[in-house]
């Protein structure tokens, strides 16, 4: 399905890809800045794919799929749109387009997930899928401080082995999640590494994995407009993050 909407059969019903409405069923506070929204909807999606979430009169922005059924997103409050999302209460509605983009490809018997900040969001969906296919999943979670750690309990609940670290040393190891990756990679040599987080973290992950010959996939973020591979707003080194990504099996050069 890499050519959306490409149909030439006569008489088929018109199929648009306009936003669909969903009602917020549950609102779960995760950390002081991060909230999870469980919707009364379910979609077909692959881990790593994302939604364009629309709030009429506000804006439309990309968010990773945390769980496809019930459809769930987890949102860090960092600006105007995410603040508006955080004001939603159960019973209120939002709209979404998607699932969009190219997700993770699962491979290897034991995998290591590396999450910085809300990067844990798409990796949660990946952990769900990995568990269903019987893989051993290790998770390295990093955050500034203990109260910012996202999903340690959820990953443990899925049967993953979880390591945590905080920059201020308030919980788990002290330091960056990439330090944790380095020692885990040397101790366990995972079959594959999957990472999502800030660009600098992804760059470090790529360096560590390439130096050790470990295959890796990273989920990237760029400012998006169309979300459907047409406008070029999200282009990095000639690739469209919204359509060729957001998951890349190596970091695009110069990104």
């Amino acid at each position, binding site marked *: 399905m890499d050519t959306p909407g490409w149909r030439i059969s006569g008489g088929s019903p018109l199929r648009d890809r306009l936003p669909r*409405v969903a009602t917020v069923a549950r609102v779960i506070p995760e950390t002081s800045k991060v909230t999870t929204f469980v919707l009364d909807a379910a979609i077909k999606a692959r881990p790593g794919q994302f939604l364009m979430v629309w709030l*009429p009169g506000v804006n439309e922005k990309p968010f990773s799929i945390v769980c496809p059924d019930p459809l769930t997103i987890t949102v860090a409050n960092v600006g105007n749109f995410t603040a508006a999302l955080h004001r939603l209460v159960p019973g209120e509605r939002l709209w979404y387009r998607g699932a969009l983009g190219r997700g993770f490809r699962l491979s290897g018997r034991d995998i290591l997930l590396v999450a910085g900040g809300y990067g844990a969001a798409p990796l949660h969906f990946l952990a769900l899928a990995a568990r269903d296919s019987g893989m051993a999943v290790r998770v390295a979670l990093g955050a500034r401080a203990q109260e910012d750690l996202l999903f340690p309990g959820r990953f443990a609940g899925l049967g993953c082995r979880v390591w945590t670290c905080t920059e201020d040393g308030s919980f788990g190891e002290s330091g960056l999640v990439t330090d944790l990756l380095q020692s885990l990679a040397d101790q366990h040599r995972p079959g594959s590494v999957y990472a999502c987080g800030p660009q600098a973290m992804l760059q470090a992950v790529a360096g560590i994995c390439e130096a050790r010959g470990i295959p890796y996939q990273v989920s990237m973020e760029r400012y998006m407009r169309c979300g459907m591979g047409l406008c*070029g707003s999200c282009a990095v080194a000639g690739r469209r993050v919204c359509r060729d990504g957001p998951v890349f099996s190596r970091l695009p050069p110069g990104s």
Partner: protein
Amino acid sequence: MSRLDLSVTICGVLLKNPFVLASGILGTGAAILERVARSGAGAVTAKSYGPGPRAGYPNPTVLDWGSGLINAVGLPNPGVEVGVGELLETKERLRPLGVPLIASFFADTVKGYGEVARTIAQAGPDLLEINISCPNVEDEFGQPFAADPRAAAQVTLEVKRATSLPAIVKLSPNVADIKAIARAVEQAGADAISAINTLGPGMVIDIEAGRPILAHRVGGISGPAIRPIAVRCVYDICSAVSIPVIGIGGVLRGQDAVEMIMAGASAVGIGSAVYYRGPGVFKRLEVELSTYMEAHGYARLADFRGVALEG
């Protein structure tokens, strides 16, 4: 297939095939334009640059409403001063590939068009495309320049005075008499015409939200829905002028391109098809066009260009 010649020369610039990436599609930077060139485009058009930086409209900006797309992106661009650098790098990357670069631009006054043209010409693009037809660009009377033959001609004249580069004028379908506009810009010195820009404006309302989905409320329609209008516009223009025409609008398949060429187009713009069929669309269009030509015994595009205009 080797005996087929898909090349076309427009204003002295050679395209190895007639498929031109349309403006505003993927054309945000040198690397992505190089990718499109490598995936088989005959020429590429960069996004439209204006006199100064523009943020564009908030999202939603582009939607698939079923039979086509609607967009109101709002011409986001860093301004022509920054644009020159981007275009220089693009030109550098395209040169070894033999794929010409078309630089598109807009302004909000007639004089402004001349100034932006002078600046953008420093990047040395192969061709200029004057965007007088974006629904978001209006003259002081609230009309796009493309809506009035006099305004369209003034802009063309001003640009031709400012630079010696060949200039394509991009026309809007949203006019009563597109032939009159085409004749006016030809007389003012336009070297070619591209048509059409998006149709409309249109509107899509979400019936749950009870409001237009696009943040700008209205937007231009593109894709399969507009093809018959685009073909008619190209046909009308080609029957009125003798400068070359780049036919744009709803071309998804090689067969659609044949239709444009039969209406008189010298080259064919590709926009929304990049969404429907991906950036690989250029190679596929070339195969489909070649297949058609072989089956009909055509060796060159000129063998069937404009046949629909005769008789």
